[in-house]
C-alpha cells in the first residue's frame, strides 16, 4: 500500500498489444470467457451436482425403485428410461442456462464485460457455448451410467450421427431459451422457481418415465402436445427404433423435434441478442 505508481509495474509500461482482426478477437475473447465459465463449475457445488449427482440419482431411482412397478411392452425398462432421461437432461438445460445467466447479470460481471472493448457477441456466445459444454458433461454421465446398467441402444453409424446432431440441436435450442429467460427474470431464485414449476412437470408428462398413452385425459392431452414429448420420443426413436403412437408430433417425433428446436431458436436468438446488445 506504500508503493507509488512510479514504483509499481504501471499498466502503461506494458505495451498494449496490437488489436488483432475482428474474427481472431472474437474467438480469443469467446475462448477466455468460456474458460472463465468452466473454471467456476467446481466452485458452485449446486451447479456441479445438477449435472452429475442429480442425473445419477434420477437414473437409479427410476431404474430400481419406480421402475420395478413399470412394465413397458416389448422392451426392457432400461431401454425405455434412458432415452427419456437424455431428453429430460436437454430440457433441464433451460434451468441451468437460465440460472447461470441471471446470476451473471445480477453480480454485474456482465456489465463489466460489456464495458470492456470486448465484442459483445463473444460475451453471449461464450455464455451459450459454456452452458452447452456443461450440459454435455451431464449427458455423458447419464449415458455412461445407463450403458453400465444395461441400456442397449440400437443405432447404425448413421443413426449415431443423427442422434448426436439431434442432441446438439436440442441443446442449442434449450440453452438459448434459458439464456433469454435468465435475462428476462434476472434472478436466479426466480429461475429455479420457473424450473420447478414448469420444466419439471412438463418433463414428467413427456413420456420420460411412463408412456403418455396410459395417462389420464388431462395429462395425456398435455403430454401429446408438450414439445418435450417430441424431444423424448425422437431420442427414443433414434436410439431404440421405437415408434410412439398418439398425437401427430409423437408419430413424427424427429420432424417435430427439429421443428420445435428451430422455432425456439428463431424466436429466442434474436430476442436474446437484442436484449443483450442494448439493455439498460
Amino acid at each position, binding site marked *: *500500500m506504500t508503493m507509488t505508481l512510479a514504483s509499481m*509495474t504501471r*499498466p*502503461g509500461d506494458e505495451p*498494449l498489444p496490437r488489436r488483432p482482426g475482428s474474427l481472431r478477437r472474437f474467438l480469443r475473447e469467446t475462448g*477466455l470467457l468460456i474458460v472463465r465459465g468452466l473454471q467456476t463449475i467446481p466452485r458452485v457445488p449446486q451447479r456441479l451436482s445438477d449435472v452429475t449427482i442429480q442425473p445419477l440419482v434420477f437414473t437409479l431411482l427410476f431404474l430400481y425403485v419406480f421402475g420395478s412397478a413399470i412394465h413397458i411392452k416389448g422392451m426392457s425398462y432400461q431401454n425405455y428410461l434412458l432415452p427419456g432421461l437424455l431428453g429430460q437432461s436437454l430440457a433441464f438445460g433451460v434451468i441451468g442456462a437460465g440460472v447461470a445467466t441471471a446470476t451473471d447479470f445480477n453480480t454485474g460481471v456482465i456489465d463489466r464485460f460489456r*464495458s470492456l472493448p470486448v465484442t459483445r457477441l463473444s460475451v453471449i456466445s461464450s455464455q451459450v457455448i459454456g452452458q452447452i459444454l456443461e450440459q454435455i458433461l451431464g449427458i455423458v454421465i447419464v449415458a455412461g451410467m445407463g450403458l453400465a446398467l444395461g441400456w442397449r441402444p440400437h443405432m447404425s453409424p448413421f443413426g449415431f450421427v443423427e442422434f448426436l446432431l439431434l442432441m446438439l440441436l436440442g441443446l442449442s435450442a434449450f440453452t438459448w431459451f434459458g439464456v433469454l429467460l435468465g435475462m428476462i427474470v434476472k434472478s436466479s431464485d426466480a429461475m429455479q422457481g420457473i424450473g420447478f414449476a414448469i420444466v419439471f412437470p412438463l418433463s414428467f408428462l413427456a413420456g420420460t418415465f411412463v408412456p403418455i398413452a396410459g395417462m389420464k385425459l388431462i395429462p395425456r392431452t398435455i403430454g401429446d402436445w408438450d414439445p418435450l414429448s417430441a424431444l423424448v420420443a425422437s431420442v427414443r426413436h433414434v436410439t431404440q427404433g421405437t415408434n410412439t403412437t398418439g398425437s401427430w408430433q409423437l408419430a413424427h417425433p424427429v420432424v417435430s423435434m427439429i421443428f420445435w428446436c428451430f422455432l425456439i431458436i428463431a424466436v429466442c436468438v434474436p430476442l436474446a441478442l437484442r436484449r443483450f446488445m442494448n439493455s439498460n
Partner: protein
Amino acid sequence: MSNDAIRNDESVVVAKGLSKHFGDFVAVDNFNLEVKAGSIVSLLGPNGAGKTTIVRMLATLSEPTSGSATVCGYDVVRDADAVRGVVSLTGQFAALEDNLTAQENLLLMARLRGYPKGSATRIVEGLIDRFDIGEFRDKLVKSVSGGQRRRVDLAASLVVQPKVLMLDEPTTGLDPRSRQVVWSTIRELVQAGVTLFLTTQYLEEADALADHIVLIDHGRVVAAGTPSELKSQIGDQRVDVVGVDASAVVLIVDALSATFQVVVDHNRRTVSVPAPHDLADLAAVTSALSGVGAHIDEIALRRPTLDDAFLALTGQVPESYENEPAMKEVTP
C-alpha cells in the same frame, strides 16, 4: 481526433443535452458536461439523483434517450467500441465473477484487454501489491469482505492505464485507510495524465479531489463550478457557536441577536452569524457572549461548506460524513 494527442485544454468528455427516460420517468434531463483532459470532475448528488445513469451512458452501458456524448472524440453510441478502448469504469456495485479468486478476476480482465498471459500476470501482480490484495488474492471473491471486493473491483479497472477513468462512488463502503489509497491513486493517475470522472455522495470527497463539481438532483444540474465557486455562491463566511444544550442555545441567541443577524439550527444546537470581517467579527461574537453564562461547546470561524451549498441550492441536505468518524483526509 487522435487520442494520442490530447492537449491540456482539450475536452475529453463532452455531453450535450444527454437525457435518459425509463418509461415515463425522466432519470436524467438535458445533462451537459465538459471534462478537460487531466482534470477531475465530480458528479455530486443524493440518492436517485441520476449519477449512475449518467456514468452508464458515458461508459456505453446504456443508450441515451436523447442528446449525445463523446469520449476522446468518439461517440458513445456510434463508436461505442472505441469509447470502451479508452475508458475504464468501476461501477457502483462491484462487478466481479464471484466464483473466481481475486487474482483470477484481475487476470481475466487483463487478458480481455488484450494482453498475453505473461504481461497480464505482471500487471496483475503490480495491482495486487498496490491495492493490498495479497492477503486474499487466492480467496474466491464471494467470500471476501465488501471493502476488499471494492478494492479488487478498482484494481480491475486499472489493468490498463485508461485515458478516462470513471468511478461511480469509489469510496462508499471503504475503511479510512482504503479510502486514502483510492484518493492517492486517483491523484497519481491524474499526475500521469488520466482524466477522472467520479460520482460521490460525499461532499468532503468532491471538495478534496475535484477541480470541478457538478451538483445534480432529480436528473438535473443544480449548480456547477470549482469547489470555491460553489461555496461563494452561497455567501460569506460565518461564525458558528455551538451550545451544549437547548437552554444554552437560547442564551446565545439572546446575547447575539441584538447586534447580529442570527441563524439558528436547533438540531445541531448551532447559532450562526455572518462574519464578513474575519477575526473582528469573531472577536465581537466572543465579547458579546462573555458574561452571559451560556455553556459553549465550540466557537469557530467557518467558510461555507458544500453542505450549505447543497442546502441552499436544492433545499435538502445530502448524505455526509457527519456520522462517520475519521472521514476527513489525513495528510501523511
